[in-house]
């Protein structure tokens, strides 16, 4: 009846538009530009050792950025994620050094606590319908207080240390905080965890039912619920996923340095969000990608270390951060206009 033969309108949609509505596009362009900038000026930066060097911060940041990206696609924020890396690290070191736990049991306790905190964030947000920005800001402040308060009460200082002596340390370190030799350069094993997390997250987003639900609850929660999507469960699962990522990163860092500062992770929550936004996540939810967030983290790692390689003052990093964020949000807005443009 209304069938038009071999649609002449397909052409007008165009390849350019198809590419432009990929959320990662901006991040890929940024990645190439930033790499070219530093690689051109610093031979160390482009050497295998240099690459191993800037991939390391990219990895730990990337694990978090990917989890936060999923959460943001689902339409929520988690400001407590950074401090939670500290909380889980502190639990690990404290239990293993002061209460005779072996490293594995201490990590398990840390995981359970992280899951409970994620669950609490998720429950409060979905039950009260308060903005997650506020709810997790509350969690952020409470965890920050607990981290410092408990550490001070136990040790009289603001750090716990001595994980090296705990039972099971060596194996746990090899798995979470070791290095792998590739062609004479040692790369941190955290890079593998980051690649794994990114791959799993991408699969979940693009190829699982849960992925469809994540996009839907972030895009239009009411509409999603009306077609039978378990919106609250999806969001709670996302908060718990973020908490597990924080546990993973907290454990990696604790095993690597064998001590944890009570104020660690504060301020990182915004870096995660910024990396996710550079990677194409919209602040309003419903759009973004895990690979994009991982690339956003690489851009950070490059800038973080690249500035040092060039011998610049580290303060320039902050300037760079701001500039990248602005550019990325502008690019994202264009993308959104393209994608959402309603034809009349």
């Amino acid at each position: 009846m209304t069938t038009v033969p071999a649609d002449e309108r397909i052409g007008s949609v165009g390849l350019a538009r198809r590419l432009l509505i990929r959320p990662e596009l901006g991040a890929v362009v940024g990645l190439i530009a930033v790499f070219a900038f530093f690689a051109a000026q610093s031979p160390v930066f482009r050497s295998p050792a240099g690459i191993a060097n800037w991939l390391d911060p990219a990895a730990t940041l990337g694990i978090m950025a990917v989890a936060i990206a999923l959460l943001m696609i689902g339409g929520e924020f988690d400001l407590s994620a950074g401090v939670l890396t500290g909380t889980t690290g502190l639990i690990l070191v404290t239990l293993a050094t002061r209460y005779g736990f072996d490293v594995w049991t201490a990590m398990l306790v840390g995981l359970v606590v992280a899951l409970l905190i994620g669950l609490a964030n998720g429950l409060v947000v979905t039950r009260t319908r308060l903005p997650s920005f506020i709810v997790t800001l509350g969690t952020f402040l409470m965890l920050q207080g607990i981290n410092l308060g408990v550490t001070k009460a136990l040790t009289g200082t603001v750090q716990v240390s001595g994980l090296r002596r705990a039972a099971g340390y060596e194996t746990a370190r090899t798995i979470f905080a070791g290095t792998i030799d590739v062609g004479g350069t040692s790369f941190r094993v955290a890079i593998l965890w980051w690649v794994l997390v990114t791959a799993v997250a991408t699969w979940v987003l693009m190829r699982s039912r849960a992925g469809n639900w994540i996009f839907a609850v972030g895009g239009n929660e009411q509409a999603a619920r009306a077609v039978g999507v378990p919106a609250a469960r999806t969001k709670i699962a996302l908060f718990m996923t973020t908490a597990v990522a924080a546990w993973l990163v907290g454990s990696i860092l604790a095993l690597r340095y064998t001590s944890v500062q009570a104020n660690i992770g504060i301020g990182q929550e915004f870096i995660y969000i910024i990396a996710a936004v550079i990677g194409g996540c919209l602040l309003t939810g419903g759009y973004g990608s895990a690979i994009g967030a991982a690339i956003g983290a690489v851009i950070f790692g490059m800038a973080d270390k690249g500035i040092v390689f060039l011998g610049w003052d580290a303060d320039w990093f902050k300037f760079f951060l701001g500039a990248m964020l602005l550019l990325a949000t502008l690019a994202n807005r264009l993308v959104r206009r393209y994608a959402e443009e309603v034809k009349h």
Partner: protein
Amino acid sequence: MIIQTRDIGKTFGSVLALREVSMSVEAGQVTCVLGDNGAGKSTLIKILAGVHQHDTGSFLVDGAEVRFGSPREALDRGIATVYQDLAMIPLMSVWRNFFLGSEPRKGLAFDVATARRVAREELRAMGIDIRDVDQPVGTLSGGERQSVAIARAVHFGARVLILDEPTSALGVKQAGVVLRYIARARDRGLGVVFITHNPHHAYPVGDRFLLLNRGTSLGEYRKGDITREELTGLMAGGAELEQLSHELSHEPDRE
């Protein structure tokens, strides 16, 4: 008779949104619900769809009394709804929207190849011409979006399709397209509940007409029992319309 309500009522706090409304939906027929803004049309169909629960009266599906706790329960009984205000997720592709909430599975995974193919086929079977099922729903026109939602409900084996003002935001031509899909769904044996404030959209496809006014029913009419003019008159509150046309007409001998 798939759905029947008997003297159903609903209050929101002190607001009496619906009072003693009776209606019925039969397979292969279109029941039109007409009424002005705030008449309670959306409230009524939200009860049928499991979004709200009724406070008084009874709601029967296949002759047995029910009370749905969630939209999912209504869906499981074959009652699918396309809402006026919340229909689809604009940033998601057509095929993702099509299968949202009922994704086909292949092992643990969402079978995206099947989803894409079936979405394309089902849309074509309903005569809906979408350029590309990968395009975001936000880039579709309002009529196309409604059509996709209708095709989705039909595909998922809905026995009753509830449409909340699917034509209200559309131009004449697009409204015609949607009306045609309503007729197709009806011809496939679905019971359709079609909500509108436009009697000219309702009359050509409708088999029964339920008129609501400020939460109460002005009666349910079969097509044979009412003419288009009577329907229009009832809708506008007859006398009020005459009064209005009198007020708005020119008064040539002034000045």
